[in-house]
């Protein structure tokens, strides 16, 4: 009798499932790890920001330098994100829909910013556009300022964030192939109509998802931007750089208040992403995760 019972429970449980004790231990491990390394710091950011009350918190945003940093961050994101949206669409379209020599090189290049340290990416721009750099003399002669100015920050941000949209779209577009586009063409649609009415609707959720990730990174990027910015207060400091400056000056409340803005943005992005995943699980199913 006991044999039968044991046999039955063994059938009900899949072979890949562990014993309850093991399962609980693994889950607990993951939760504790997350709590210590992610939830606690996040909590500290907000606790520290409000440690002297809401008035001090609000005062941190009244600072002209803080406002300048917020404005600059928004400007950079407003340029970098659309630029990468267009680049990402073009790159994934060409990779997924045509075959051409050097395609695998292009795919590797798209992943490059993920594998190179952001500081190095920043340095590359300094070497290219800085006054001692390759194009420096020409830029100086024509009175164009790139390094230690907004253009350099935008360029560095674009570089660091350009894989996000493309990486979301390429696997999805490859999976979908181009048979629907072919169908649209046989029905008389122009190339542009095909893109607008067939290709774009098929990738819209992955595209939005890629843009969200790209935006979060564009606003939060520190390393590459730090190298090219020059840290000029009120002029070339983005939010992450301003946070560092305030922190180094022991202005904890102001530093954490600004940091909480970034953290809040991250939380909103995460929330939106989760919502999209839940809402459009099927459409997103074809893509790879980072």
């Amino acid at each position, binding site marked *: 009798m006991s044999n039968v019972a044991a046999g039955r429970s063994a059938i009900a449980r899949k072979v890949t499932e562990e014993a309850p004790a093991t399962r609980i231990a693994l889950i607990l491990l993951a939760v504790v790890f997350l709590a210590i390394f992610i939830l606690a710091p996040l909590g500290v950011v907000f606790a520290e920001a409000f440690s002297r009350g809401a008035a001090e918190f609000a005062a941190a945003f009244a600072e002209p330098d803080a406002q300048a940093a917020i404005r600059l961050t928004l400007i950079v994101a407003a340029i970098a994100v659309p630029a990468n949206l267009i680049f990402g669409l073009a790159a994934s379209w060409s990779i997924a829909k045509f075959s051409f020599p050097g395609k695998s090189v292009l795919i590797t290049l798209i992943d490059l910013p993920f594998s190179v340290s952001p500081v190095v990416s920043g340095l590359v721009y300094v070497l290219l556009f800085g006054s001692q750099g390759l194009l420096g003399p020409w830029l100086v002669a024509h009175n164009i300022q790139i390094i230690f100015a907004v253009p350099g920050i935008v360029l560095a941000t674009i570089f660091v964030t350009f894989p996000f949209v493309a990486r979301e779209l390429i696997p999805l577009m490859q999976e979908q192939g181009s048979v*629907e586009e*072919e*169908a*649209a063409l*046989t*029905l*008389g649609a*122009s190339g542009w109509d095909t893109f607008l*009415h*067939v290709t774009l609707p098929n990738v819209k959720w992955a595209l939005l998802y890629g843009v969200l990730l790209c935006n979060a990174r564009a606003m939060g990027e520190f390393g590459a931007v730090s190298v090219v910015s020059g840290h000029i207060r009120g002029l070339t400091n983005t939010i992450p750089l301003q946070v560092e400056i305030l922190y180094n000056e022991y202005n904890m409340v102001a530093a954490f208040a600004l940091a909480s803005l970034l953290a809040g943005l991250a939380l909103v992005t995460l929330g939106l992403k989760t919502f999209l995943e839940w809402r459009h699980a099927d459409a997103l199913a074809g893509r790879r995760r980072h």
Partner: protein
Amino acid sequence: MRDVSLDIRPGELVALLGPSGSGKTTLLRVIAGLNTPDRGVVYFDGEDATHLSVQERRVGFVFQNYALFKHLTVADNIGFGLKVRPRRSRPSKQEIAERVHKLLGLIQLEGLGDRYPAQLSGGQRQRVALARSLAIEPRVLLLDEPFGALDARVRKDLRRWLREIHKQIGLTTVFVTHDQDEAMELADRVVVLDNGRIEQVGTPEELYDRPASPFVLSFVGEAVALPVVVDHGHVKFGDREIHINAAGLRDGPARVFFRPADIAITAKGGGELEGRVESLRRTAGGMRATIAIDGYDQTLEIDSALTDAATLGSRVPLSLGHARIFPTETPDDEFKEAGEGI
């Protein structure tokens, strides 16, 4: 694809039949303008269409897996080709709606216009794909393995239905298939392709009764190939002589092809071949025997009337009815292309 020349008549229903890799889909895509040939010309109604774009050719193309637009409803799928027309030739919203409604009636899916493709069965999707391609009033209708992804019963119904639709609208239609039954049942003429070349073009009767090559013979229906030797007009299988006209054949090895239905158990003393009865089963009309022919390494199944001669393990004489002979190892061009339109 090499040296393919094919003439399709207006209103005809033509099948491109061949094994996978034979180039049948490529040929269809070249007609549609989805693939560009390195050389060669495509004519529509005598007009050179080679340099027309896909859009300009106005072909109705039904893809193998339908390629319906997932994000559009059935009605919007069908109306797509009308909606993307340039403004001056675009029908009004109402005209489009009417046309879509009519086509939904034709494909017997009235009332399902608001569904999405994912909510339809395979057979329904297939019909929507057909309606979508008909909406643009194409000059020719091209179907790539139209029934390939469907189960056997739906396939049969759809076949009959497609035949009826073709009769109704009389549109020149070309479809690709690897299923010879499908080609024979549906098409007015069948184009048999192998290795990027046309082996034969003909009506189903012609292909079945007068196959131009061993390939066609064995691809269209079952066939048995007996290795024989031709010697001064006599055809020998081992030491037995087979009575078949071998005029014009060079001396040397050849193969005699016949269909299982063309061989029968005959009275003692007659027959060109002999075999051993391996198994015997009673069927409704008679019996089915599996017979091993002497000197041949395969068995064949023969349906025959009840006779006492055949008992399990006994030797029976076999007589050959209709058979064809083709030389072995002949250069390909010996039996290249027969039939018309080439």
